[in-house]
């Protein structure tokens, strides 16, 4: 019969219409209640009919990995050095940024003129940013993260859409709050909840303490002990001393490397100038 297909299709439309309101009739308008379960069911795979989100009264909370614009992680207020940047101004985020919307000014020590691992200024032009998340993915210090705050509409872009360091900085607890799982994973990888440099330093300190303790323990060791035992004690001490020396050496080497790098950069610039 001609028109049967149309009627069948209209049946589907009617079912959709009924499905949308079936819930209301069966459960007494539960979709307007604040219960979490209802919301999860309505936004999940079991939803029937239209499942409108009543924004702004209710909002689909975004998942952990959601990325909007980036922000910088700083220490919390109750931290021993509060407000300190996690960023070491290494520049990887600005290099890996596809549309090149990140500007970083590396901090320098005014006394020596040497670079210090802190950004003096940090800018992100969110009119260029493409929310790709590479900066967060490739940051070796977990210092830049993708924010979940998408409510950023403004009436004037020139004054608000270049985010400076002040605007970008958010405490670590904020990151913990919006992405607990990811933050935990990253902390596991770093070896603690602190910034990776702090962890390294602590480890170094602990090593040094262990060394000192071992040193203290070595002379205290009773003299008439068998030579074999004495050797056994002496060996780790020597090792610890070596470790400490190598750490110092490393620092020296690091400074040298940095200086070399600076010189190379200057040369490069000079060459470019020609």
């Amino acid at each position: 019969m001609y028109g049967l297909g149309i009627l069948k299709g209209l049946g589907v439309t009617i079912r959709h219409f009924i499905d949308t309101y079936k819930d209301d009739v069966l459960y007494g308008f539960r979709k307007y209640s604040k219960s979490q379960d209802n919301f999860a069911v309505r936004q999940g795979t079991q939803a029937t009919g239209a499942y409108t989100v009543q924004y702004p009264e209710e909002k689909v909370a975004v998942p952990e990995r959601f990325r909007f614009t980036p922000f910088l992680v700083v220490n919390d207020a109750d931290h021993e050095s509060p407000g300190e940047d996690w960023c070491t101004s290494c520049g990887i985020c600005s290099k890996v940024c596809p549309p090149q919307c990140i500007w970083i000014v590396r901090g320098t020590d005014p006394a020596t003129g040497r670079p210090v691992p802190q950004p003096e200024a940090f800018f992100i032009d969110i009119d260029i940013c493409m929310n790709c998340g590479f900066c967060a993915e490739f940051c070796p210090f977990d210092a830049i993260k993708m924010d979940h705050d998408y409510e950023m509409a403004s009436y004037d872009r020139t004054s608000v859409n270049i985010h400076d360091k002040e605007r970008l900085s958010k405490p670590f607890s904020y990151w913990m709050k919006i992405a607990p799982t990811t933050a935990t994973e990253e902390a596991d990888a770093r070896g603690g909840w602190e910034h990776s440099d702090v962890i390294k330093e602590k480890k170094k300190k602990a090593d040094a303490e262990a060394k000192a303790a071992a040193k203290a323990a070595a002379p205290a060791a009773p003299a008439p002990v068998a030579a074999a035992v004495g050797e056994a004690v002496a060996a780790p001490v020597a090792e610890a001393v070596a470790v400490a020396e190598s750490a110092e050496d490393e620092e020296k080497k690091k400074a040298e490397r940095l200086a070399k790098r600076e010189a190379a950069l200057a040369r490069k610039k000079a060459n470019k100038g020609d």
Partner: protein
Amino acid sequence: MSSKELDLRQVHDTEFPLPAEMQGNVAITSLSKIYNWSRRSSMWPMLFGLACCAIEMIGTASSRFDFSRFGMEVMRATPRQSDLMIVSGTVTKKMIVPIVRLYNQMPEPKYVMAMGACASGGGPFKEGYNVVSGIDKYLPVDVYVPGCPPTPQALLYGLIALQKKIDGQSLANLDDVPWYGVGPSEPTPIPILGPDIIDPRQMDLIRRQAELAAAGKPYGVRELPPVVKTTKAIPSKAAKAAVAEVVDEGELKRREEAARRRQAVLARKRARDAAKGV
């Protein structure tokens, strides 16, 4: 409505020549309220999408986010019947010509929303040779919605921001409602597709540059704005801790300060620009 606007005497301190004795009596403010409410509750966007953001715009129009809850369900395919132009995506030089034409065809009152990074300031494609770095180079934009692309909820937030903006407009202030002024509103000059796009409003500047080029003088290079470097001493840990405590006393305070600084920078920049005659 702020209490300031409810002061009728202040409201009437505009181009409307009301007799002095009537100024305390005529309730234009309430009329504004009704007028604004009806206007913002029936914003009809134009049915036109440019790029990726258009997909999210359609997502916003679909049943899950459904902007018809804000009175925007009637997306009109013709500019003659629409109030709001959502510039949803990258504006190219080739496309800016029809966009300006469409804008001119929209009846007043009309609003423009720059949706996404591309429409606001060029976005990731800013460096491209065929990309206009921001629709605001050609059209007056009312609301900018950042994001690449803004999620439907971000777009809804922008639409609510636009509604708030409309709510703030007073019927008595001709700056707010210029379409009730004398004479028709000026159309925006339509760009011309020459060897590159030509903005008719910049004709004089282009001519000057061309003359310089013909005379063999340097042209086409603008002096870089001087970089203001603040050689900031890196504070000690103790000093930083003190600063951080202040910072953490209140988010609001910090933001206020940041906003003030930005304003100051902006003012300086404007002054500089004015001095240059840009």
